[in-house]
C-alpha cells in the first residue's frame, strides 16, 4: 500500500490521503503511521481517496473508523472519495456505507465540507422572460434547491412563496415587452438563503412604486388594501427585505435565515 498525503491550499482544514495498492492486514502499520503524521488540531477533515485501491480488509477499515472517531471528537470527519464499485460493494456488505460518507470525487467531498462549514455560499443565477406563467417553475426551482440542500419543508415552502411574490411583482410592476427579462440570483449556504430579483423599471410606474415603498405608506398597509400586500407578506416570511428602485432597474433583495429547532430543519 502507498499513501500520499496532500494538503489543500484553498481549504487549510482539509487533507487528502491518496491510497493505492492493497489495504490488507500487512498495511495496517503504514496506515496508522500515515494517520499519526496528520495534525488533527488543524486538519479536521480527511478525505481518503481510494480509487486506486484493489482491496480493503476489515482490519484496515477498523483503523479508518478509529481515525474518524478522533476527527469527530474535534468536530471534523473522515470521508471516502472516488471509490470503485467492487470496494463499494465490500463497504456495503460490511455495513460501512452507513458509517462513512462516500463521495464521487475529491472535489465533491471538499465542496460538501465547505457547505457544512458555511465557508462559501453557493450561487445560482437564472434569467427568464418576464411572463407571469413562468413564475411557478421558477418558484419551484428555488424550493427544490432549498430542499436538496437540507432545508426543511416549512422553510422551502416559505422560500417558494417569497420567490413567487417577488417575481410576480417584478413582472407586474416592471417594464413589459417581449424582450424584457427577470434575473434571479440565489445565494444559499447552511444557515441562510438570499435572493436578488432584478427587473427593468417601468418609467410610468416608477413614482407609484417609490411611493408604495416609503416607510409612511408601509405603516398604512392593511390586509384590506389591494396594493402592497405582497411586500408585507414577504416581510413577514423573511428576515431582511430591501428594494432598490431606480430608472435603470428594480432590485429586490431578500434574506431568509434557515429555521432549525432542536437540530432539525423546519
Amino acid at each position, binding site marked *: 500500500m502507498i499513501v500520499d498525503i496532500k494538503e489543500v491550499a*484553498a*481549504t487549510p482544514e482539509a487533507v487528502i490521503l491518496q491510497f493505492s495498492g492493497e489495504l490488507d492486514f500487512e498495511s495496517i502499520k503504514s496506515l496508522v503511521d500515515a494517520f499519526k503524521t496528520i495534525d488533527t488540531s488543524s486538519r479536521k477533515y480527511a478525505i481518503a481517496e481510494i480509487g486506486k485501491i484493489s482491496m480493503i480488509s476489515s482490519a484496515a477499515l477498523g483503523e479508518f473508523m478509529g481515525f474518524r472517531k478522533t476527527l469527530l471528537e474535534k468536530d471534523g470527519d473522515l470521508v471516502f472519495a472516488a471509490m470503485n464499485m467492487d470496494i463499494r460493494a465490500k463497504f456495503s456488505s460490511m455495513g460501512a456505507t452507513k458509517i462513512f460518507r462516500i463521495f*464521487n470525487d475529491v*472535489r*465533491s467531498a*471538499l*465542496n460538501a465540507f*465547505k457547505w457544512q462549514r458555511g465557508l462559501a455560499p*453557493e*450561487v*445560482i*443565477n*437564472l*434569467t*427568464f*422572460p418576464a*411572463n407571469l*406563467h*413562468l413564475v*411557478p*417553475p*421558477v418558484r*419551484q*426551482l428555488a424550493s*427544490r*434547491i432549498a430542499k*436538496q*440542500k437540507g432545508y426543511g419543508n416549512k422553510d422551502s415552502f416559505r422560500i417558494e412563496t417569497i420567490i413567487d411574490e417577488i417575481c410576480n411583482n417584478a413582472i407586474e410592476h416592471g417594464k413589459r415587452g*417581449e424582450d424584457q*427579462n427577470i434575473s434571479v440570483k440565489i445565494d444559499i449556504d447552511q444557515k441562510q438563503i438570499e435572493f436578488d430579483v432584478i427587473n427593468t423599471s417601468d418609467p410610468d410606474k416608477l413614482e407609484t412604486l417609490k411611493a408604495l415603498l416609503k416607510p409612511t405608506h408601509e405603516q398604512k398597509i392593511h390586509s384590506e388594501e389591494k396594493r402592497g400586500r405582497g411586500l408585507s407578506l414577504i416581510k413577514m416570511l423573511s428576515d431582511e427585505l430591501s428594494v432598490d428602485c431606480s430608472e435603470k432597474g428594480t432590485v429586490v433583495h431578500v434574506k431568509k435565515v434557515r429555521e432549525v429547532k432542536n437540530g432539525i430543519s423546519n
Partner: protein
Amino acid sequence: MNIQLPYKFELSFPGDIEYIPAIRKFVSEVLLVLQFSPKFAYRSEIIVDEICNNAVNYGCKTEDARIDLICNVYEDGIDFTVKDPGGDHQHIERLKNAISVQSDEKSNTGLGLEIVRMLSESLNVVIDEQNLTSVRIVRKREDISQNN
C-alpha cells in the same frame, strides 16, 4: 395565454450533481407551461439530465467549477447549450471519442450521448483551446397540431 416565442432562459449553477434534479425539472415544467406535450417535456428532461451529469462528472475539476445552461424555446422546438469549464485530458479524450462515433455505429461510450442522440435532432460538441466544453442539442417538436 399570452406567449410569444422565442423565449430564452439562462441558468448558471455550481458543478454539483445535487442541483441537477431541480434543474431538469425546471426545464420540463417550463416546457409544459409553454404548451409543449408532456412527452416532449419529459424527453427534454432526460436530455438535460444526461448532459448536465456529463458536465458535472467530466467537465468540472476545480472546486468552484460552474455549469451554464442556455435554453432557447421556439414554436417548433427547443435548443439547449450546456457549458462546462472542461475536465482533465483523459475525460476530454473520452468525450472526443464519444462525439466521433457515428449515430449508426454501435457504441458504449458510457457518456449517455447515445440516448441524447436518439432523442434529439442534432448534437454538437465544441471543445475550445482552454478545454471549455459546450454541448448544443436541438430538438424539434414532433407534432405541433397534436399533443404527444
